[in-house]
């Protein structure tokens, strides 16, 4: 048994390396593919030795977009995995549970009242994300037997998302001159974001990921139920607080960076769990590596299918990720 688990650990460790390789490949493709394609070899040399050439200019401009995808993809996938662990809910995803809608509503509200400069800060997204998360949880656990089952959380997320998305639309339509540049962001897009977005978002993603690093043992214990977890010496309340802080920061940062992109947080943990099982010590690192692979891959796909224009990445992830919601329901772990 010990030997079996040791060779499994080796296998999963090697898998992490493969995932890192996939991540590099996805990042390379994200820089190479577009209206003007650049061969992968030239991407590499232009990145290492930037010069004044046209190719180099293209690579530099696409690099910013790729960095954004790396950060947002990791943030969304880890946030999804943490939410799924905390709520013991295989349908968890910051998009489905309304957190993204809350974050974008508060970004739009802040922009409308305090101006575009304030709206670009990640802090503008945090209160809305927190509000939506709490509201969804409260609605879902309403009632005397107060248990937030997966389906209750999803439905509460639909309700909150619908109301907040309508608010976003209403504000955006009332101030068209302010929100013209938000048209793509509202659907979720890696393109056309201000240059300093990566710098603004990076600290939040790092803090969120570091908090997530503290969580695996706690989440593994929570999966056994609150009573068993307490008997094992876990402070369930503290795990929940750290987890909620981590997921909220990550989702808010991702939304501030690229808009409300859905289904990445659902699909990636779902795929990863099929080979790691439910051990969060493996699940979370894999999500951090494979989340960007899905997001960057979707972005590349969006540039290919709608040539010469491009499809916003939020549209592609909805199409690619929604089937995982059906798959998760059919597996029966959602209690449906």
């Amino acid at each position, binding site marked *: 048994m010990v030997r079996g688990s040791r060779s499994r650990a080796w296998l999963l460790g090697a898998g992490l390396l493969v995932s890192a390789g996939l991540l590099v490949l996805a990042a390379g493709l994200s820089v190479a593919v577009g209206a003007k394609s650049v061969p992968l070899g030239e991407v590499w040399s232009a990145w290492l030795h930037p010069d004044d050439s046209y190719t180099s200019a293209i690579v530099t401009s696409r690099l910013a977009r790729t960095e954004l995808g790396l950060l947002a993809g990791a943030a969304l996938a880890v946030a999804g995995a943490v939410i799924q662990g905390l709520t013991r809910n295989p349908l968890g995803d910051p998009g489905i549970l309304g957190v993204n809608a809350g974050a974008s509503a508060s970004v739009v509200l802040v922009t409308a009242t305090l101006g575009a400069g304030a709206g670009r800060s990640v802090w503008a997204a945090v209160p809305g994300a927190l509000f939506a998360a709490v509201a969804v949880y409260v609605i879902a656990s309403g009632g005397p037997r107060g248990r937030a089952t997966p389906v209750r959380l999803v439905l509460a997320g639909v309700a909150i998302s619908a109301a907040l998305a309508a608010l976003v639309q209403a504000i955006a339509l009332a101030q068209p001159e302010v929100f013209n540049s938000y048209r793509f962001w509202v659907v979720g897009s890696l393109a056309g974001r201000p240059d300093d977005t990566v710098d603004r978002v990076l600290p939040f993603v790092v803090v969120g990921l570091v908090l997530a690093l503290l969580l695996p043992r706690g989440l593994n214990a929570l999966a056994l139920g609150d009573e068993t977890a307490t008997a094992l010496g876990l402070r369930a309340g503290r795990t929940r607080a750290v987890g909620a802080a981590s997921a909220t920061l990550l989702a808010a940062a991702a939304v501030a960076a690229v808009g409300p992109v859905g289904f990445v947080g659902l699909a990636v943990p779902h795929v990863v769990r099929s080979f790691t099982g439910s051990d969060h010590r493996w699940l979370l690192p894999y999500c951090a590596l494979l989340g960007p692979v899905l997001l960057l891959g979707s972005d590349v796909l969006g540039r290919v299918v709608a040539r010469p224009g491009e499809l916003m990445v939020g549209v592609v992830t909805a199409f690619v990720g929604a089937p995982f919601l059906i798959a998760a329901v*059919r597996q029966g772990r959602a209690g449906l």
Partner: protein
Amino acid sequence: MSAPAVARPRTAPVNRAVPVNPRAVMVSGALLVLTLALAVLTITIGELGIAVADLPAVLAHQGSRAQEWVLYSNRLPRLLVAVGAGAAFAVPGAIFQSVTRNPLGSPDVIGLGAGSAAGAAAAALVWPGVVPVPIGALVGGVVAAAAVLLGSGRGLRAPYRMVVVGIAVGAMAMAFVQFVLARTTQQEAVQLAAWLSGSLQSRQWGDVVTIGVALAVLLPAALALTRRLQIVEMGDDAATGLGVSPGWTRGLAIMVGVALTAAAVSVAGPVAFVALTAPQIARRLTGSSGPGMVAAACMGTTVLVAADLFAQHAPWGAQYPVGVLTAGLGGVYLAYLLVGEWKKGTV
């Protein structure tokens, strides 16, 4: 009438000798009067509004040219589409809520509206002129309904499963619509974007004809199914014992519901949550235990006409697509409905 104002439990026995519920008749009548008042308001208020005193003259084609234009080219088609689409959204809501025995199983929650929108967008922009838009909407609605029923793996027996699968199908359908939008030229895309959130702006007489024909054919069919649906709600065994085939009744009802939703979406866009809320409110007002098509239709009409009136003359200036308003209010109502369902312990 001693029925309480709140909805009775679904399992309450249906023991009326007459199939007509007097309270439902009263409620429907009141809603019709209210709709008429809202309709007069819709036509009369605002910058271009026709004064109430002039209205009979304009209706008799004796008004000024400006007044005639406002009424016949602008406000009347829009009003009539709102009236028709309101009923055509609400009746499928009543049908699906009855068939799934669940207030959340309404077409806009389980992705049928989005599916119809995807079909309509494809018919309008991907293959323009090949298929009429309403037919495209119908095909999209059928595909979405089939995807939800097959995707859930257990069909109608697991309504909550259907709801979650429907969220996924709806997300994919809306993604497809965005894909279509991204591929079209700017001008068409701007027009479609307003329609996409559900809008009644600049409706034409052609839209009135579309929704009118659909209602003329499908509403009687829905009414004819009401009694059977009511019996099927009591349980498959009871229905079979009473000589009503549950399978056929549900199948026919779903077809009528999908077709009506497609008609409504093709003229008004996927207006959110009228299908969810109108039948529920109607059911609470009439205190009836059955699907109550007539009351639901009247309530849908009232809701959509009122929402569109408010959307046109909202105090904050900008003209909103009516769907933004219904989505906001409907989302709040959905949350309220959910808490009520949890308290009953149905999930």
